[in-house]
């Protein structure tokens, strides 16, 4: 599911402005970037990373386990399909603005190939001190430090802010997963929790959620069973209720999707609910002490 230090990483769209900038940041952090892809630019190199025209061509010469896409939203589906078809099992899609229909196609194809998508519209992931794949400000030492707290966030900026709270609590992160803020994403809160439940390094989990959708509700049963303390902050309590998509939306979501429904179900499952980002630090400190 996740990148390890040993995983080799491919950067799709490496020659673009953002691709080039973040490739350097990732390399500096120690991420094993083995190749980049930009059609028509095969043979060039970016920060010493060789560029290929297609993922297939890159995989022949420089096989990788993970790919991260720096491509515009309308090209994300093709990029992700190219990666999974070429045999990459973990694809990180950062783009904000991917049409939801494209995301559905992308996920259907990925599941055919036994691949997993992280995103779209997320900042990627980091194993502090080991590897970062995406656009997280990994060099900020009061945000990311190796530790035992797993963080799963639907929001990039808020997730980063919450990671700072983990550090304020005197702790660090085992893995931070930016699952993305789109209505449909490839890796859900529930799947992230299932990973954290199994992960030996993770001793506590922070869920950063927000109103809309039912990912937090769907994750509640795992919270109840995982045997590790969980702190949750669900943003949007002050926001006006989102417009429902007709009767159809009401029928498929029922009474779920509100901050109230999410916090209620998570609390019932045993999670500690933070009302502000700063409360995350306090609740986490307390929970870790109690749990010991």
């Amino acid at each position, binding site marked *: 599911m996740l990148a390890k230090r040993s995983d080799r990483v491919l950067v799709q769209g490496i020659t673009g402005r953002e691709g080039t900038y973040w490739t350097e940041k990732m390399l500096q952090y120690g991420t094993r970037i083995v190749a980049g892809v930009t059609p028509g630019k095969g043979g060039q190199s970016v920060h010493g990373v060789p560029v290929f025209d297609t993922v297939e061509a890159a995989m022949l010469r420089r096989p990788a386990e993970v790919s991260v896409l720096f491509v515009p939203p309308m090209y994300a589906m093709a990029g992700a399909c190219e990666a999974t078809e070429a045999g990459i099992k973990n694809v990180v899609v950062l783009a904000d603005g991917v*049409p939801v*229909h494209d995301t559905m196609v992308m996920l259907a194809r990925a599941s055919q190939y036994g691949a997993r998508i992280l995103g779209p519209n997320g900042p990627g992931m980091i194993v502090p001190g080991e590897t970062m794949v995406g656009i997280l400000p990994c060099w*900020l030492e009061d945000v990311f430090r190796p530790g035992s707290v797993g963080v799963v966030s639907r929001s990039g900026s808020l997730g980063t*802010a919450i990671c700072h709270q983990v550090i304020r609590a005197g702790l660090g992160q085992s893995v931070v997963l930016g699952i993305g803020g789109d209505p449909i994403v490839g890796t859900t809160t529930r799947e992230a929790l299932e990973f954290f439940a199994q992960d030996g390094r993770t001793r506590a989990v922070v869920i950063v959620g927000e109103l809309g959708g039912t990912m937090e509700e769907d994750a509640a049963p795992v919270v109840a069973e995982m045997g590790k303390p969980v702190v949750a902050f669900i943003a949007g309590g002050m*926001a006006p209720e989102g417009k429902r*998509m007709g009767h159809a939306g009401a029928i*498929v979501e029922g009474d779920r999707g509100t901050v109230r429904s999410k916090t209620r179900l998570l609390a019932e499952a045993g999670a500690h609910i933070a009302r*502000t980002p700063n409360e995350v630090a306090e609740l986490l400190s307390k929970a870790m002490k109690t749990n010991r």
Partner: protein
Amino acid sequence: MRLYEYQAKWLFAAQGIPTPPGAVATDPEQAGAAAEQLGVPVALKAQVLAGKRGKAGGIRFAQDAAGARAAAHDILGATLNGFVVESLLVEQRLDIASELYLGITTDRSRRCPVAIFSASGGVEIEEVARSEPEKLIVMPIDVAVGFQTYHAMNLALRGGLGGKLLTAVADVASRLYDVYWQYDAEVAEINPLVVTQSGQVVAADARMSIDENALPRQKNLPKNAMPGSDLEIAAREQGLTYIPLDGDICILANGAGLTLATMDLIAAHGGRPANFTEVGGGNYLKARQSLAIALSRPRIKALFVNVFGAFARADHIADGFTQALVELKPDLPIVACIRGTEEETAWRLVRERLGIEPYKDMDLAAAAVVARAYGRG
């Protein structure tokens, strides 16, 4: 982006879904003429993007052209659930034998489209969903395969239909999916799908909303103003998300999640957020427009900027909003909390251009802005 009923019906009809003969009218004369041409009786339906239109008086019937003119006179210009009625859809009135429900929507939890059908359609469908869920058939759709007529047949069959009605409804359902898919819809819904006394199946109402991320490739959609205040519309025209709220502390943050959390934080400290304005992604380039819109409302007491830069770098965002504030020169207390990628450059810009010291802890910053807004600082 939600479409008006008449726009959705254009798309449905183009895909071969039966809709009642009708015409759009923006004044009583047009409504009367439409009634004459269509043949009476007619239904006159307010074109507003709000639900429960019928209960709010937005649907009227008329037996003749004079009646249609009178009804149009009443409805046009009236305010319905907060929206001013600017146009009507005048349609042949249907002889209703029964009302079904049919919808295609994106199911966030299943991560695929679903088709929904019920033989008990009409305005009370949500009540049916609660009290008699077995009467609602929900069928997930594999996007690699689509929703073929035989899938639609199974849907209608599970919903209790048979015979000619089964094949007619299945035909509409599979066409409805084609509309949903082709136009990047979030939802395409027919409620009620009317069965007439003569056994015809007709889409009496139509609801459709389009994924805004897909608009760049949806060139053939009807041009359409979304509902909202002038400020909301101005923001949308510039590609910004701006939702006005009841409060008085103006908020600018990056990313939807952090913006929501910032609103919560202001509230937790006793403040009242005035708006939801997001400058994530590439939108930090539009900070000036965002701020101009957000600050243009009366009774704003303070501005709170909360940035945690990552992909959108803190220095880029700071460059945008500090420049904008230098130009706009708002006469307000300003509190800025800044963290993230290239934060030191960002802090320097805030100090140099605005002459204030940026916060690094958002909790302290929120407390400060609330105190200053309400004269307690």
